[in-house]
Each structure stands twice: as C-alpha cells, then as structure tokens.
C-alpha cells in the first residue's frame, strides 16, 4: 500500500531507497540515461559535459531571460477567434516551484487586449461623492508611503472546467492556472481617500481601467480603506504592461476582476454600477435559480502540481508530492494530502513564510508501491474555512455556478505511472 512518510523519514529513507534502487539499476533517471551511458564505460561521466569549460561564454545581458532550454515553459493562450485580446493566458503551474510566480508567467485575463499607456500622460482620477475631486500623476503617487505584500491574484473563473460532467484532461496550469502570486508594491489607497475626503454616504467606488473595454467594477469603500494597494511594482520592477502598467488596483484575496488593471478612475457613489462584470458575468447561479452577487473573496484552495496530469512516475519508490495552497480569507493553516482518494489524510509540510492571501508551497513524502492511487490535497485556512470535496461543492452550488470553483483536485496514478485527472 502506498503511504505518506514523515518528512524526516523521507530524507533518510528516500536516500536509502535511492541508493538501493540505484544499486539494482532501477532508478528512473538511471534507466532513462542508460542508452547514453552505454557508449561510456560503466560509471564514467559523459565526455562532453566539460565542453563549456573550454570556450568563452556568452556576454552580459541588459535584461535576463530564461535559459534557452526552458523555452517550453510558457503561458498557453486561449482567446476569442474574432477578438484576439479577449481571453486568457494560463500560468504553467506544473512547471513552476516555490511560491512566487515569475512575472512573465503571471496569468492574464483581458477583455479587449493590453493597452499602451504612456506614463508621462497618466493620471489617476477620483471624483463623485468626494469633498475634493482630485487627479494624481505618477510622480505624485511615488511620493506616498508604500507597502510591499506577497499576494496571490486569482481569476473568479479559474478552474471552471471543474463544473464539467467529465474531468478535463489537461495539465494543471491549463485548468487551474488563472492564479499567480507576486510581490506587489504600491501606495495604500487609504491615503488618497483621506485626501479626497470621501462622503460618509459613499459606500461604493466604481473602478475603471484604461483598456479598450473600459472595464469597470464596483468596489466597497470599506475594502479600499483596508488593505487596498495602488500597485506600481510587481516583483521589484514596475508593472508589466499586461499586469496593468502603470497602475493596478490590488485587493488582497479578492477575485481578479475587481483588481482593475490600468486603473485610472475611481468614482465614489452610494450604489454599485451593476456593470456586466458583476451581473451577467462573475456571479454564481445556484440550484435554486437565484444567483450570488458580490461574492468577492476567493475561497480556500489547494492542488498538487507534482505529480499531476501529463506526468509519468516511472518506477515505484519515494516521491515528493508538491503543491500550492491559498485562501482569500487569510493564511493557510494546514494542508493535508491523501493517496487513497480522501479516505485517509496526512499533514503536509509547508514551506515558509506563511502569509495571508498568499501562496503556500506544500510538500509531502510519498512512497508509491506501484499500485493505482488517487492523490488529493485539501487546505484549511486560519479562519476555519476548509476546501470542499467536489461532491459537496456541487451539492451546495449545483453545476451552473461557473465562478469560484475551489473543490479538491484528484489525480489518479495508474499502475504504469501515468497521471490523469479524475473526479473522486
């Protein structure tokens, strides 16, 4: 029977197992390289491995790019045939490690393309129910005290293939990859609210972007006062164009559509605008026929990124099960993993730091006996919210909710080592 191992055991026993299997000549990578090795005398390293030590290397570069050998680690794009700027690109979660998403691989959701915004002409406008309508240029915004926070951003429509009748067979990033995690640095919006003097009856702000959809959503002023950032920097550098350059609204833990990119306007009002993106879209239809609206927070979610769909385990032995967990409500408190479809659970190790509204990377040592297994993970956050099973989520929310899917993800490992998506 396959089992999860204590992390300390993993390091010791894993090493012993590796040595044992290596001695027996059955270690997967040893097997994979046996063809190359056959040309050499047993135990001898490859003769061409030192070639780079005998010629001058590449010159310096002004801006570093990934290794040429990593060209296949990209965002896959799914966009409208007639409107190429309407669609998404997915973060390839299956190829990434740690808790920070590389900036160039941060997911995208655009409604009509990436606008070209000249920072010299940019202004953020605040008007409506305010004592002083104001405009701020970038030089002015730079003068305010800033804050840096590591935060995930997840599209409200992420993982929506989970509602499908049959489990979708695609890599984890092409299914759940409308979520990414970055360090966002910017100005706490509260400073600007105080300066404009928000009317006490103004409970909403309508945030609008400079994109060709002039995307606009309603945001409670209370959220703008607590934790909202006017982000200017992502992972230490100014925002990328596709992530809102020069200014993005960041609302920790909330659905991505609210975190308006290319933010240029906040109109303060006493009512929501009821835009398309908060009525016809990004609302959750329930089995009763009623729909939930203004459900802002992304619920607790976790998934195993390795092993995951499309990967092959090779020979039985010890593997590290790796994954990501997050919750829009707060911090990850606990991640558990199962290899028997949720009948028994083991606590996974979480790499630090554990931060609110941020990815947590979890790991668990798993000894696979070569028999079919179903791998799962589930997260509990520090507010007591627990990631639901798919059956429970569907029992509560039906099959037509489309948004905010956060059920447990199941990967079946077959006896030949192939990994596929199942509902379990």
């Amino acid at each position, binding site marked *: 029977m396959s089992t999860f191992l204590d992390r300390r055991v993993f390091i010791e026993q894993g090493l012993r197992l590796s040595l044992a299997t290596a001695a027996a000549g059955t270690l997967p990578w040893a097997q994979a390289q046996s063809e190359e090795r056959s040309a050499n005398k047993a135990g001898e390293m490859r003769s061409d491995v030192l070639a780079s030590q005998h010629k001058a290397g590449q010159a310096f570069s002004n801006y570093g790019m990934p290794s040429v050998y990593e060209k296949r680690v990209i965002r896959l794009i799914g966009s409208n045939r007639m409107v190429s700027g309407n669609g998404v690109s997915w973060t390839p979660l299956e190829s990434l490690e740690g808790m920070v998403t590389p900036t160039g691989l941060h997911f995208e959701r655009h409604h*009509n393309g990436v606008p070209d915004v000249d920072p010299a002409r940019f202004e953020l406008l*605040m008007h409506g129910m305010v004592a002083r309508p104001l405009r701020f240029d970038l030089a002015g915004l730079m003068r305010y005290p800033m804050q840096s926070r590591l935060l995930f951003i997840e599209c409200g429509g992420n993982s929506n293939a989970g509602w499908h009748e049959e489990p979708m067979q695609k890599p984890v990033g092409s299914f759940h990859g409308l979520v990414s995690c970055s360090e966002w640095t910017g100005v706490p919006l509260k400073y600007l609210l105080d300066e404009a003097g928000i009317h006490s009856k103004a409970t909403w702000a309508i945030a609008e972007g400079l994109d060709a959809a002039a995307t606009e959503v309603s945001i409670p002023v209370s959220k703008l006062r607590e934790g909202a950032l006017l982000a200017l920097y992502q992972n230490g550098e100014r925002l990328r164009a596709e992530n809102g350059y020069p200014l993005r609204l960041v609302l920790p833990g909330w659905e991505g559509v609210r975190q308006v990119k290319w933010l240029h306007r906040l109109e303060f009002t006493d009512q929501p605008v*009821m835009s398309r993106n908060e009525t016809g879209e990004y609302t959750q239809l329930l089995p009763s026929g009623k729909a939930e609206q203004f459900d802002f927070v992304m619920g607790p979610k976790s998934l195993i990124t390795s092993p995951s769909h499309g990967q092959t385990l090779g020979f039985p032995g010890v593997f590290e099960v790796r994954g990501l967990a997050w919750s829009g409500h707060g911090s990850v408190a606990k991640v558990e993993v199962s290899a028997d479809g949720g009948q028994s659970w083991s606590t996974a190790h979480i790499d630090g730091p554990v931060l609110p509204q941020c990815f947590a990377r979890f790991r668990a040592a798993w000894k696979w006996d070569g028999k079919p297994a179903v791998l799962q993970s589930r997260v509990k956050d520090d507010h007591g919210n627990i990631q639901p099973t798919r059956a429970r989520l569907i029992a509560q929310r039906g099959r037509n909710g489309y948004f905010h899917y956060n059920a447990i993800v199941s990967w079946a490992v077959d006896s030949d080592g192939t990994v596929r998506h199942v509902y379990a």
Partner: protein
Amino acid sequence: MSTLKIGRLVQFTPLFLASLLFSLTSLTAPLAHADSTASTPSPMGKPLHSDSITRLAPNIYPNGQGLPDGMGLAKNGSVLYQAQCASCHGTKGEGATAQALIGGDGPLSAHDADKTILTYWPYATTLFDTIARSMPPAAPGHLSADALFSLCAYLLAENGLWARDQPMGPKELAAIVMPNRNGFVQRFP
C-alpha cells in the same frame, strides 16, 4: 583606478568603525524623528475640474444616472446591429464567436439554464453601459447616444421586453424591469 586608491586608503580600524557607526546614527536620527511626527503624507492630488469629468465615459447606474439625453428606435438598431454586431453575435443574436444576445432558455434552476440578457441580466441599463464603453471591440466608445438607445431598443424588443415601435430614451430604458430583476442575492453588504 581611483576606486582602487580609495580602497587602499580605507583601513578598518576600530576607530574607523566607531566613527562610521556614529555618522550612521547621526544620519538616521532626524529621519526617525520625522517618522514619529509626520502621521499623514504630503497631499499630492491636484484639483480635478468638473469639465474634465464630463469628458469621461459615464458610469450608467440602474436608476438611469449617467444616461445621456437621446432617443432611439428598434428599426435603426436593427440596421446598426447587422452592420456592427452580427459578425460576432450572429445575425439573429443567437451567439457565434461572442455570446447570444437574443433569447435563452430557462428556468434558471435548470442545471443547463442559459444565462442571457433575457433570462439572467437584472438591469437594462447594463446593456447600454456595456455597449457604450466596450462595443464594437475593434472601435469601442464611438457610438452616439441615439445609436446606443437604438441598439438597446432593438435587442430588448427582440427579447420581447420592449415594444418595437416605441422610441427609447433614458427614462424609458431605466424604467424597464428585467425578468430576473430580483434573481440576485447580494453577498455584500
């Protein structure tokens, strides 16, 4: 060269380290003092004049706030629709590469219910707002108020929610009660 020279001149004696520590302390002291007294940042906002605000695309609210003056007819909207919208939304609004705009099967409690303007959208003003700011995607934001009212009149008439021959203006659009007007449960506030 000069860097090297300086490097050679600097000697890390205890006296040097002590003086460095002293100078760092004296440098940071005024900043720490400033931090404790300056609780609010310097205001950097500049006045925004009302004539600038009128140049912005209006946010159209369910009560009609933000709607411009104007008047439209479904028959004009039909012509505009075929020219500007049908290539993506279908000649009968049945949906193609873009969503269906006309029709839709309920009830919403059915697991395969359509979430369309007819079956799902709670406010007619959302239609005007969406078209005004984002349609057509190749050249958004250029339709006149009359053109927008005409398109709304056409789409709402085709959905059986508006009399085909009746002119539509801001008051008429805001007064329309959509079939799913009370279908939403607000999680906030």
